């Protein structure tokens, strides 16, 4: 299918994220049945790749991301990131939260500079300035989050994640709380930033359209216990034409994998 964007070929070199036979079972209270959340997940993400994880709600996709980040411990299997087992959060990999992750007591520029406070002043200033521009918040440097719209706050969060120059960015439904039009705009901006910054992005969403618009590869999870149903490569050039046959094809394939019909209402 189509042209292959640079860095999107997931078969060259060593993977930066490597999940091997991962499983998670929550042992509940005494007498209660243990809940198996994830089962035998095998996943590799290459440097510079943009991978989306989609699946029905409750399938464990956020849990999987939390394990890869180190916020949560798996029951079985291994997670290797940049060659070493994950022990906890690491500033070389930054997590972008769904909402409210920005600190309301700091201004836009203070938020963006949060992760680089130990660097020389001049460098901090330049970096903050650069990312304020990149996410389109020029003029709002001194504003507080409560004075911004939801979309603008999410831009702050993305800029804050980029500022320490991490190698990997984890995103957990970062646009989930935004309205449709803002979401489209944010996706276009994220794609542009990803192309400029050449980061590896692992992006969790329940929105199938979103995954096809953004990703080099879409990982489809089944409902609980979450297993990988299918991995679909999206070899479409960017910016993506949302009317193209290939786009619709990829989208329908995911819908089909999840087991959903594209018709609404009774026949």
């Amino acid at each position: 299918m189509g042209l292959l964007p640079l860095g999107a070929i997931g078969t060259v070199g060593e993977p930066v994220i490597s999940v091997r036979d991962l499983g998670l079972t929550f042992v509940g209270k005494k007498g209660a049945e243990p809940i198996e959340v994830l089962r035998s997940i095998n996943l590799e993400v290459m440097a510079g790749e943009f991978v989306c994880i989609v699946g029905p709600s409750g399938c464990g996709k956020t849990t999987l991301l939390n394990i890869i980040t180190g916020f949560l411990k798996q029951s079985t299997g291994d997670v290797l990131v940049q060659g070493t087992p994950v022990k906890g959060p690491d500033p070389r990999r930054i997590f972008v939260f769904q909402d409210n992750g920005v600190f309301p007591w700091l201004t836009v520029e203070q938020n963006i500079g949060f992760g680089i406070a130990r660097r020389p002043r001049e460098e901090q200033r330049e970096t903050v300035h650069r990312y304020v521009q990149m996410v389109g918040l020029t003029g709002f440097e001194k504003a507080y989050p409560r004075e911004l719209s939801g979309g603008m706050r999410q831009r702050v969060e993305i800029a804050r994640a980029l500022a320490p120059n991490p190698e990997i960015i984890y995103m957990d439904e970062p646009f989930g709380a935004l309205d449709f039009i803002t979401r489209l705009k944010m996706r276009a901006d994220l794609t542009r930033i990803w192309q400029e910054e050449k980061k590896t992005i692992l992006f969790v969403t329940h929105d199938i359209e979103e995954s096809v618009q953004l990703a080099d590869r879409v990982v489809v999870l089944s409902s609980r216990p979450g297993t990988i149903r299918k991995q679909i490569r999206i070899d479409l050039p960017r910016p993506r034409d949302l009317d193209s046959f290939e786009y619709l094809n990829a989208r329908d394939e995911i819908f089909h994998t999840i087991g959903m019909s594209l018709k609404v209402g009774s026949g």
Partner: protein
Amino acid sequence: MGLSEDEMKKSILLPLAVLLVLCVLWDGAVLLSKSDIFPRPYQVFLGIVELIQHGLLLKYVVASLFRVSVGFVLAVLVGVPLGLLLGWFRPAFLAFNPVIQLLRPISPIAWIPIAILWFKVDDRAPIFLIFLSSLFPITVTAIAAVQNIQPVYVRAAQNFGVTRIDLFRRVIFPACLPQIITSLRIALGIAWLVVVAAEMIAVNSGLGYLIIDARNAGKRYDLVVAGMLMIGLIGLILDLLIRRLERFEEVKWGYSH
């Protein structure tokens, strides 16, 4: 936020009208009852003038404010760090919370005999009582603020690899600050209530002493009511002052307008 000019006028004139009506009712009630002890409003006014002329009003107000300030500041210096630490370190919370919950319901007034035993009739007794009465609301609020902090803030900060001290200084403390400020406001209100009670028993100056002394030394109820009005007025001013803390940009997010 800006009130219109009309609104401003109303917010001044209406309360003044209520005050005037209350004074008239008060005056009428005293006249009707033919009481020769209960003062009429103008007598209270003259009482205030008399207190000012004798230099007593300023002296007593300063004495009361001094005790409240020292006791309150001590309570802030102890209560805020203590609350933040107990909120953060679970074992410390489990160890100390029952003691706090046991001491908390004891009215500061109940401590008066012990305060006199330890500090004699001296400024330290009311200061101790104010310290106690302010300490609990501040500590308990700070504990709850830390325990209810949004986990996403902590996780976001940890993700950037901050040290524990930085996490406390740059995230936990600012995240709890709006609630802490609210607790300071409540604590100061309580402190002002308590100083009056403490001064009635434990010392020989201050607005509380003025009230009890005016009654004991000659049934001067004009001075009693004058003292009460001063207590109300100063309490109002204290509250207005401490509310200004809520207007800082760093904490505004914590208050719904």
